[in-house]
């Protein structure tokens, strides 16, 4: 019963991911493409939840749905003459795009079918975020604090590059 529901939810999320992914590459309005990308990435977070990877799902929502798409939407809105009638609103790289996608699909399918996957007899028990949090705050304290230094370096770098102009 539970497996059936999980399979159903998986197919719903997969359908949303594939559908919105197709919308991202086919829609004429690039702003709408960016919004469909939000839907696509959000559904990927749903798949992570199904895999008991709650922390990865939270990161997916915060970083990809929150931050990355905000940057993309900003970049779109800051682009000059994006909606002027003189700019063709269609993808002019359809054929190279199809070639790359088909090649990627074939390579992935071959790699997936040739790999012998190891199956774990027992699933992940309990809440994975607790173990991640404990490991982060006890065993890996130093890397955890260093992360803030990395962030501050990124911040200062961004400010210096942006202020130059």
């Amino acid at each position, binding site marked *: 019963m*539970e497996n059936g529901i*999980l399979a159903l*939810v998986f197919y719903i999320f997969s359908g949303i991911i594939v559908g919105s992914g197709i919308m991202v590459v086919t829609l004429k309005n690039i702003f709408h493409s960016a919004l469909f990308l939000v839907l696509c990435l959000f559904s990927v977070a749903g798949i992570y*939840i*199904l*895999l*008991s990877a709650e*922390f990865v799902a*939270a*990161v997916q929502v*915060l*970083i990809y749905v*929150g*931050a*990355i798409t*905000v*940057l993309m939407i*900003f*970049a779109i*809105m*800051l*682009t*000059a*003459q*994006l*909606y002027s009638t003189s700019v063709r609103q269609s993808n002019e790289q359809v054929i190279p795009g199809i070639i790359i996608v088909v090649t990627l699909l074939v390579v992935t399918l071959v790699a997936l079918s040739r790999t012998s996957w190891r199956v774990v007899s027992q699933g992940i028990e*309990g*809440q994975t*975020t*607790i173990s*991640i*949090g*404990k490991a*982060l*705050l*006890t065993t890996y*304290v130093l890397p*955890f*604090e260093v*992360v*803030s*230094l990395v*962030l*501050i370096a*990124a*911040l*200062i770098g*961004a*400010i210096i590059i*942006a*202020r130059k102009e």
Partner: protein
Amino acid sequence: MPSDYAYVGLFLLFGVLFVLFVFILSRLIAPYKPNPVKKENYECGEVPIGQGWIQFNVRYYLYAIIFVIFDVEVVFLFPWAVVYRSLGFFAFIEMLIFIAILLFGLIYVWKKGALKWV
């Protein structure tokens, strides 16, 4: 466990259906008589100047980048908040150091005048 998220899924489903319901309901019962004044962009009740699709000022991008940095910080707040009760004061000090370091970043941005609209 994925089954713990059944309520989240239910909530999500209800949210989507509610929005759809409201849109369909307003389409069904609201009269539709457009005229040029009604179809104008809303700009605080003023007569709008230019189009809605304009190029925004590049300065906004800096705010977006600063937002992304502090968004990544929030990612680390999440596992910390989950284990906070079991680790207690130790975890509090650790997060205090983490945020204090990032606070210097914010002070740097502030002092540099990057938050000011010039």
